[in-house]
């Protein structure tokens, strides 16, 4: 299904890739209804699965669906459809597809579309709309969804004629997966679905993809970058989402190894560089390890690879990495000099740029800097699960650590948003790209469960774990039914601390423990799962974790674990928003979760 694979170089590769799928689009030009054209074009683009919810304005399309080799997953809320398409795309690198009706169906997609936009995930959303004759009249369930989604899509289309449909859809797929990927919406009026037109898949191909005209990788830039690397004493590679998006894992690794440069990762960069690699420092930023952030503050060179200096990783910009020159390798020209000024900007696809850069990089002795970092690592201390006093209390950190151990780190983990998300990032060590799926840019609670459904559909052979908070889980818990209806084997870990934990933590640190609106009453999640036909159990102590996780893994179908963890635990270290990277809040001494140097 390589036609669905993203064009990683930002060039027009997809036009040469041939779907191995059905010949539906290869037939001679035929007269079809708009609805049939819709599905036939999707099949031609390599789509095998879609996530959707029907309604009046999209009914003609649904009526035609059974004639096409596409699996439709009925969601329980359209937000879930967008997240599923997103999880599907992140897990596989293919374009995810969500379908919804007009009006409320379309508006329900918006949070999911915005989530995909902020994390550059290629999805195509299809919405029905009222008949073109009544557009703009506030007809029943009419909404201006192209207007609403304009700022949260890469592009969107309003199609009101069957003959325009195939071209718009094919263009949508091209836009979604090219350059810096992102969501595209195609709004199709009901009459366009019902009318007929000649369908000619090949004739509907979009114009060759035109890379952003401001992409720029010049000889002089490559030479300057190589020179900066050669002359640097304290360099760090900052690896972001772009590493896996571009498929540049090998190149980043070669650069790091050849020039002996340590690698720090953003949240979405986790997995792009193996956690076990001796040069991997771990996560940077707001909840990154203290020594990682300190090293960035001391560095004399930052090599940013497919990351955008988000405020969560820079802290206060004025005092960010004050001694460092910056090399910024990035596919989106609008990211250059946005937050952090780059001495050298290499604006292009990460993998291609690194391939051009690597021949200029020679071996380098980085041992002094690596030793310094290692020493600071010991000095500022690390959390060590092994050294936790076994008081019997269950900490979320325990759960993450044990999950990592038991699954051998091979699971595909989908996290929600909150404290558990950060603990997962800290204690579950990701070796491979596309094994951590999480909403980084928008931070969308409710993301994990539906995104995991998408991920499991994309990678049925993978062991998939949802890790969600008690708050976020309740935002989209209705999708448990979807899991059951689709017979998906998904393991669910609810990290139940009785609070909107991350917000409570902010209240603890910055609002004098005024716990307004953060204590949270929840249903018995095990019973809730059982009501859906999903078995589960509650876990209250550390000693129960192993057995519970094994029970979940060996269950034939989905399984839910309700981890009742310490209620008022906080994520450490933490950089308060707007503070400098080295101004971290550290775990108080008396706390049972003591940090020690022997981290493993």
């Amino acid at each position, binding site marked *: 299904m390589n036609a669905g694979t993203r064009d990683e170089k930002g060039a027009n590769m997809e036009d040469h890739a041939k779907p191995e799928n059905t010949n539906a689009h290869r037939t001679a030009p035929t007269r079809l209804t708009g609805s049939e054209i819709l599905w036939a074009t999707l099949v031609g683009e390599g789509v095998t699965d879609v996530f959707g919810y029907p309604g009046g304005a999209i009914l003609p399309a649904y009526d035609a669906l059974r004639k096409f080799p596409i699996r439709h997953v009925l969601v329980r809320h359209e937000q879930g459809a967008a997240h599923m398409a997103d999880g599907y795309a992140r897990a596989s690198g293919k374009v995810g597809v969500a379908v919804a009706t007009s009006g409320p169906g379309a508006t329900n997609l918006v949070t999911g579309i915005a989530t995909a936009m902020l994390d550059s995930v290629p999805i195509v959303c299809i919405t029905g709309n009222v008949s073109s004759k009544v557009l703009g009249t506030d007809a029943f369930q009419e909404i201006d969804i192209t207007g609403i989604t304009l700022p949260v899509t890469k592009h969107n289309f309003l199609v009101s004629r069957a003959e325009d449909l195939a071209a718009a859809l094919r263009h949508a797929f091209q836009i979604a997966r090219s350059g810096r990927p992102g969501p595209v919406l195609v709004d199709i009026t009901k009459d366009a679905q019902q009318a007929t037109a000649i369908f000619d898949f*090949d004739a509907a191909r979009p114009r*060759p993809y035109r890379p952003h005209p401001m992409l720029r990788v010049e000889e002089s830039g490559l030479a300057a970058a190589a020179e900066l690397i050669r002359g640097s004493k304290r360099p760090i590679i900052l690896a972001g989402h772009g590493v896996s998006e571009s498929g540049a894992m090998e190149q980043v690794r070669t650069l790091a190894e050849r020039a002996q440069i340590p690698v720090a990762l953003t949240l979405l960069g986790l997995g792009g560089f193996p956690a076990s690699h001796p040069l991997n420092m771990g996560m940077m930023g707001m909840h990154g390890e203290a020594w990682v952030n300190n090293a960035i503050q001391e560095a004399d060179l930052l090599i940013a690879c497919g990351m955008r200096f988000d405020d969560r990783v820079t802290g206060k910009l004025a005092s960010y990495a004050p001694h460092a020159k910056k090399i910024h390798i990035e596919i989106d020209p609008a990211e*250059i000099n*946005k937050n952090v000024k780059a001495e050298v900007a290499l604006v292009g696809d990460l993998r291609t740029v690194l391939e051009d850069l690597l021949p200029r990089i020679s071996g380098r002795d980085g041992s002094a800097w690596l030793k310094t970092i290692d020493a600071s690592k010991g000095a500022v201390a690390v959390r060590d699960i092994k050294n936790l006093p076994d008081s019997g209390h269950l900490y979320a950190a325990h759960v993450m650590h044990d999950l990592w151990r038991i699954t051998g780190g091979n699971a595909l983990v989908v996290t929600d948003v909150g404290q558990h998300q950060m603990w997962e990032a800290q204690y579950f060590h990701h070796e491979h790209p596309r094994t951590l799926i999480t909403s980084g840019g928008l931070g969308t609670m409710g993301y994990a469960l539906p995104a995991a459904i998408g991920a499991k559909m994309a990678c049925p052979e993978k062991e998939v774990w949802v890790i969600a908070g008690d708050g976020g889980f309740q935002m989209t818990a209705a999708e448990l039914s979807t899991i059951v209806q689709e017979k998906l084997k998904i393991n669910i870990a609810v990290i139940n601390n009785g609070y909107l934990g991350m917000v409570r933590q902010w209240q603890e640190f910055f609002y004098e423990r005024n716990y307004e609106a953060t204590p949270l009453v929840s249903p018995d999640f095990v019973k809730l799962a059982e009501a859906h036909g999903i078995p589960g159990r509650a876990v209250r102590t550390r000693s129960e974790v192993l057995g519970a996780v094994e029970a979940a893994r060996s269950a034939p179908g989905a399984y839910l674990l309700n981890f009742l963890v310490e209620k008022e635990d906080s994520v450490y270290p933490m950089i308060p928003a707007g503070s400098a990277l080295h101004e971290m809040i550290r775990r108080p001494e008396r706390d049972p979760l003591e940090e020690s140097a022997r981290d493993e």
Partner: protein
Amino acid sequence: MLHTFVAYVEDKPGVLTRVASLFRRLNINIHSLTVGRSERPGLSRLTLVCEASAEAGDRIRASLFKLENVVDVDDIAQAPSVTRELALIKVAAAPQSRSRIFDLVEVFRARIVDLTSESLMIEMTGVESKIEGLIEVLREDEGRILEICRSGKMTMRRGHHISSVLRAMGTGDEESAAVAALREEERLAAEPE
């Protein structure tokens, strides 16, 4: 500083919203915006003037390029260029006071394009400051100006300048020939082995 962007955009519904929305999101006020047909079929040319920091220029240009319907963007900045604005100014003037206005119009090299017993209309083309100069002088005659309609700035670089983007596209017929050739090439490449 004042930025002047010249862009070629597809002549399709909704394109202007996308361009305007970018500035809305950045909370940047658009001083003026003129749009019209260009020398290329299917493409409109716009000149957009806005106030933003000097560093913002590149990012705005890069963001404009990210819009699917935007084909080319030029940030004119300090480049040598010709800038013009068109203004129509309706002035109340009884027959006995006309001659003074005629003199002004003469001095400013403007034209009278409509005349009634109580008012007249002045057409003026020029750089912004000249138009403003005329308006100011007319204002000094209290209460005389009835209506002002200004086109906003239009800008074109001097000399034989053409952007690399447009050059790559060729012009008019050349373009369609080039695109046709490319498509044919691709069609052959996509043919099953």
